[in-house]
């Protein structure tokens, strides 16, 4: 576990050094989405009996935690493997590869959580549409972990940086539009809806809104996210023990 401390200390040192770029970077796109979809469209729209603004805020938190967690971890692992070669220093060192995997996932998830906190602060300055509950926070954090773990996998398996961008545009971007971020998935064609219901971001979006859901449904969302995380984590820790 001392290895975990070393890894997180290192991430923290780098985070402090990049504090302003990270902070500004994390704020730009959610603010743009809020302006365009919230204020721009929001006043004239209502969804499921609530203002569009109230509908979109959880969606933007879901999408943003997904993107930030995914990108931080995927880029960090990919660059450290292919360009900076710092990945090798960890493989040589006596850190357990499971601990390494966990540490990197935590670090990426923390970036996601940090960006979520920033959005929540900004949003709270302007509206009272957002109500934070422990369940909301738990789901947001879980979402960070799921996509940080997904980023770890992609960063580990993909051997060129341009393919990373492709993965983002084929998987991450479609998910952010199709999984109920901007409109309820009920509006989707039946066939597509079944598939979309399997994707993790869908459950995050449903859970963060969790309007009129039963306790069982709420647990189901958390369960799906947890299952995604555990499967990815176990898989990655195993790959790491033998990866080149």
């Amino acid at each position, binding site marked *: 576990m001392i290895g975990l401390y*070393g890894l997180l200390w*290192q991430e923290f040192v780098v985070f402090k050094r990049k504090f302003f770029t990270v902070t500004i970077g994390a704020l730009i796109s959610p603010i743009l989405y809020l302006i365009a979809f919230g204020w721009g469209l929001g006043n004239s729209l209502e969804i499921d009996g609530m203002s569009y603004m109230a509908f979109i805020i959880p969606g933007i938190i879901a999408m943003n935690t997904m993107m930030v967690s995914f990108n931080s971890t995927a880029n960090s692992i990919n660059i450290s493997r292919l360009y*900076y*070669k*710092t990945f090798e220093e960890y*493989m040589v060192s006596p850190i357990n590869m499971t601990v390494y995997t966990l540490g990197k996932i935590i670090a990426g998830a923390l970036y996601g959580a940090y960006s979520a906190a920033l959005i929540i602060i900004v949003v709270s300055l302007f509206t009272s549409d957002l109500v934070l509950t422990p369940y909301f926070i738990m789901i947001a954090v879980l979402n960070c972990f799921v996509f940080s773990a997904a980023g770890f996998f992609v960063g580990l398996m993909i051997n060129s940086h341009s393919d990373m961008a492709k993965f983002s545009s084929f998987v991450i971007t479609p998910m952010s539009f199709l999984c109920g971020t901007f409109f309820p998935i009920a509006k989707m064609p039946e066939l597509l809806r079944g598939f979309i219901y399997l994707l993790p971001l869908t459950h995050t979006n449903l859970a963060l809104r969790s309007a009129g859901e039963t306790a069982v449904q709420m647990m189901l969302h958390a369960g799906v996210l947890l299952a995604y995380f555990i499967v990815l984590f176990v898989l990655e820790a195993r790959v790491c023990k033998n990866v080149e």
Partner: protein
Amino acid sequence: MLDIIDLTKKYKNITAVNGVNFTIYDGEVFGLLGPNGAGKTTTVRMISTITPKTAGDIVINGESINRNLTVLKIKIGVVPQHNNLEKEMTAWENLEVHGILYRMPKVKRRQKIEEMLEFTELTERKDHLVNTFSGGMKRKLMIARALLHEPEILLLDEPTVGLDAGARRKIWDLMKQLKSGGLTVLLTTHYIEEAEALCDRVGLINNGKMIRIDTPKNLIEDVGEFTVECFKDGKTTEEFFDTREEAIDYAADLEGIVQIRPANLEDVFLKMTNRRVES
């Protein structure tokens, strides 16, 4: 003691290392010498568990090593061929992370960091980002880092590549100090002077195969202590002789630009592999 037994690495269509055997005894400096693509880096990477081996065994003091044997890995220090320092951190921070990963208690760690910074003459730059370092300074910092946790075996992959003569001398001096301290070292190089200056024994490696292992002196004596080099029609040829007289006799009959000089490891290599070592 480090035992390398039938070590083999196959990539899809290349056998990078092909059944290599050697032993490095405690306190010995062993050099792997070979041209580009010979398999030096692959060998070192397998020992440091970065690259999984295809076949064979790597044994440290009687114990087989692999990536997941964390306790055994503490005994090794690695300086890879390519810079893998954390560029957005300072020299001190790089060493601190390394010390934590190698489970050094705080007081010992901090003390050792100062000592290694002193040893590599980086104390004044310890709070500067690695990004701002010259090639030589990065190299020295990597050596400091590899030595921080007091390993028993140091693996160095081309420690002086890309350095000017002065910086290279400095690293050689560091190496000699380490050697007198009793550290066991495996270093790879394609600079023949480096192998001659530092190594107790040298393994000549080419195309993934170990061609010969001996002391630099024996290897040179075997070839012949004198080299006659003749440059003619755009090509250099070499012949080797045991005595200066024989060499002079032979040189007298040659046309072209002729030079007689003491043989060095490069000549050994040339004779054994029939190709020049690019340096």
